[in-house]
């Protein structure tokens, strides 16, 4: 039986939603059938989450209607959505940190009868989770399991998952997908929001593609491939291959020996890490979020004290120097935290002033001279095609991609010897990401040593000459690009040992 012959469980009719002057969703119509997985694909800011938030009662549509089993429904609040059997699993987990898993699951329910017991679900779905554990003690994948349980205990028949794989390792993604397939078999309808093509192709039955708030098309996954989907998603053809610039690595520039770093609470954040970084190479850093990436970047940049071990730049010890001295020696860091604006840029200041932050000390006299910075800012905007209403606009008003270009551009402007960059493409769409990769390759060709902390293994594999894997603060492997595979990196990320240890290094 063709999927379309069945009655739709959910039908969205001509939904529109604006925020101020921005049309986040423009006249979108979509159907969801029972026992199917529908992928909602689109770049960042294309309106995927907005659309689903209207389905789960977080936002109210400006116009249009939602039909559930053929009847028009009004979803005024998340409470209404739950009553109608719609459960949303948000990208940023909505969990109370100081509660146990069970307490989080119990929230908002009115005693027995209304919900299925979480313990019976854990057994029937064969999930590996301790319901009495506090959320703040949990790994991301455990937290996600709690989110899934929250929705299932409320007897939801329609599940919406917003970017569920963003924080998971490849193995964890497999587990999640298996759970989703189980649920589909049990008759649930699932919508999964993502911008990763591989996942769409792996899990979904149909794909709906959004572009700039409009629905481009809905297609059967079987009839789609990476290229057709990208073209629909971006609105033009994109070269999906990340190039790896061919260079011959030079001398060792940065050398790290037995680096141990303790956190504020005395916990070990980095445990005896040793590696070296050569001129003209990109060394990737892979690892589950929170495996010590931040401590690594910050200790090299002088922002976090080193407990033991040494860091040397061209033979000169730099651990113990102040961040400013380290910058002057030629180490630049561009760290993009989860909230993007948190580190490196002052969001209420404009581009020239943000550039000045790194250089104003070299100026003489009492008053700031802005001419030079303004000129540099103009060049930066031109070179990196940064979209901004003007140089006087605070960077908080720019879109995420443009903010990241400013941040990376500023560091590159200082012509560093070592460029440390963490998550530079976090939250960026394909087009903007490619620009950033090109910038990194260009630096590498110039002979700069690049330390690239990344999230997406496909990107790391394509871009980096060597990949170093961190697992709970320990160095679990350094793998040459030609030996590296996703499966191997994934195993190393969770700290598993393989028998062929030395061959990769």
């Amino acid at each position: 039986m063709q999927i379309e012959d069945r009655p739709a469980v959910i039908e969205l009719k001509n939904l529109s939603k604006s925020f101020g002057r921005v049309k986040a969703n423009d006249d979108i119509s979509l159907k969801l059938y029972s026992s199917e997985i529908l992928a909602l694909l689109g770049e960042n800011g294309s309106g995927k989450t907005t659309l689903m938030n209207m389905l789960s009662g977080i936002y109210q549509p400006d116009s249009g209607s939602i039909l559930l089993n053929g009847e028009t429904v009004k979803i005024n609040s998340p409470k209404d959505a739950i009553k109608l059997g719609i459960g949303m699993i948000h990208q940023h987990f909505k969990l109370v940190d100081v509660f146990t898993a069970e307490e989080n699951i119990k929230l908002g329910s009115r005693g027995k009868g209304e919900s299925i017991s979480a313990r019976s679900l854990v057994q029937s779905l064969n999930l590996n989770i301790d319901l009495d554990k506090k959320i703040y003690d949990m790994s991301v994948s455990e937290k996600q399991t709690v989110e899934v349980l929250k929705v299932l205990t409320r007897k939801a028949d329609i599940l919406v998952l917003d970017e569920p794989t963003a924080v998971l390792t490849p193995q964890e993604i497999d587990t999640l997908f298996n759970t989703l397939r189980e649920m589909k078999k049990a008759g649930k309808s699932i919508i999964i929001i993502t911008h990763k093509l591989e996942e769409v192709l792996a899990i979904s039955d149909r794909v709906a593609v959004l572009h700039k708030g409009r629905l481009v098309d809905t297609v059967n996954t079987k009839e789609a491939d990476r290229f057709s989907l990208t073209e629909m998603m971006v609105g033009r053809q994109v070269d999906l291959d990340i190039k790896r610039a061919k260079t011959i690595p030079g001398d060792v520039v940065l050398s790290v020996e037995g680096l141990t770093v303790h956190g504020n609470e005395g916990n070990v954040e980095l445990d005896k890490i040793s590696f070296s970084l050569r001129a003209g190479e990109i060394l990737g850093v892979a690892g589950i979020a929170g495996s010590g990436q931040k401590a690594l970047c910050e200790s090299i940049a002088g922002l976090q004290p080193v407990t033991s071990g040494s860091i040397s730049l061209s033979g000169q010890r730099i651990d113990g120097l102040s961040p400013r001295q380290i910058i002057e020696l030629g180490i630049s860091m561009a760290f993009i935290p989860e909230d993007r604006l948190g580190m490196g840029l002052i969001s209420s200041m404009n581009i020239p002033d943000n550039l000045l932050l790194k250089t104003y000390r070299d100026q003489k006299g009492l008053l700031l001279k802005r001419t030079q910075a303004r000129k540099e800012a103009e060049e930066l905007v031109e070179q990196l095609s940064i979209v901004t209403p003007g140089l006087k606009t605070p960077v908080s008003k720019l879109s995420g991609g443009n903010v990241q270009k400013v941040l990376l551009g500023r560091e590159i402007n200082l012509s560093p010897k070592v460029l440390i960059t963490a998550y530079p493409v976090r939250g960026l769409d394909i087009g903007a990401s490619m620009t950033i990769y090109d910038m990194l390759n260009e630096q590498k060709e110039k002979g700069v040593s690049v330390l690239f902390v990344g999230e997406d293994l496909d990107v790391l594999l394509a871009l980096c000459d060597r990949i170093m894997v961190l697992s709970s603060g320990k160095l679990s492997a350094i793998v040459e690009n030609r030996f590296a595979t996703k499966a191997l990196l994934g195993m190393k990320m969770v700290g598993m040992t393989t028998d062929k240890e030395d061959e990769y290094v």
Partner: protein
Amino acid sequence: MDFNHIILFLYAAILAGVPLLYGTLGEIIIEKSGNLNLGVEGMMYLGAISSFLAAYTFESAFLAIIAGFLAGVLGALIYAFLTVSLKANQNVTGLTLTVFGTGVANFIGERLKMTSEAGTVIVSDSVIRSLLPMKLGALSDIPVIGKLVFNHSILTYLSILFAILMSLYLNRSRIGLNLRAIGENPSAADAMGIDVNRYKYLHILFGGGLCGLGGVYIALVTCVGNWQPNIIGGQGWIAVALVIFASWKPLRAVFGSLIFGALSMLRLYMPKSIIDIPASIFNMLPFAVTCLVLVISSIRMKRENQQPAACGVNYFREER
């Protein structure tokens, strides 16, 4: 210094601790809903003047208590409307409420005094008597314990009862769990179908009422129905600090109020033969210890014992 003197001192400490306990309990329940209300002092003033007026006019202790509670609720309603419905800044709104309550109470109090013939206004004896310590039969005759524990005003027993009930409510009931979730992460609570704004309103109003009762106690028990200018005198602020001292736990608040009550009474009960320092140093003591508590409590503490994570931040569902 004999034993009897110490018992008298401890008894006085309990008396002085009761209004602090009301203020602290009120603020705890408000902060658990995710709102920081710096208007405790103001709500206590409103409670004090309203109960005083009711007692003065109707000569009824019962009506005085109700009036004080409702006045606190009313002050809290202004605060809740501004912060929950209109999303105004919580700190500014709370501070303003304190200034407002202090002004209104002092204005009405002074006005009463000026218009009275004797130049003082005193509530009739019958009202005061019904709020005086009452004996609980044979229990009150037990030596020491009888005096310390079973010989108190109805308002004192009530405050302890509130502390116990609030502790059960927060930690054992389903509604309490939902409330704590709102204080920690309102968007998580919202996503689970909890009506965040309704919870906030109800608990802010109830907390305001408790603060009002603290005012009632000060006006009618501490000052025995004799209105004085600046009658609350910063006790609302100590209550705000006590919330931290009690790490947001009602039962610890009982303990904390006792300590701070004792500190404020030390001036009167410390024999000059032991320590002879100016009285103003003793007056300073509760505030100095408050500072100390704030410093120490910012260092230690498990995550469960900290301020609710979303306290002080307004919740707006459609925020991007």
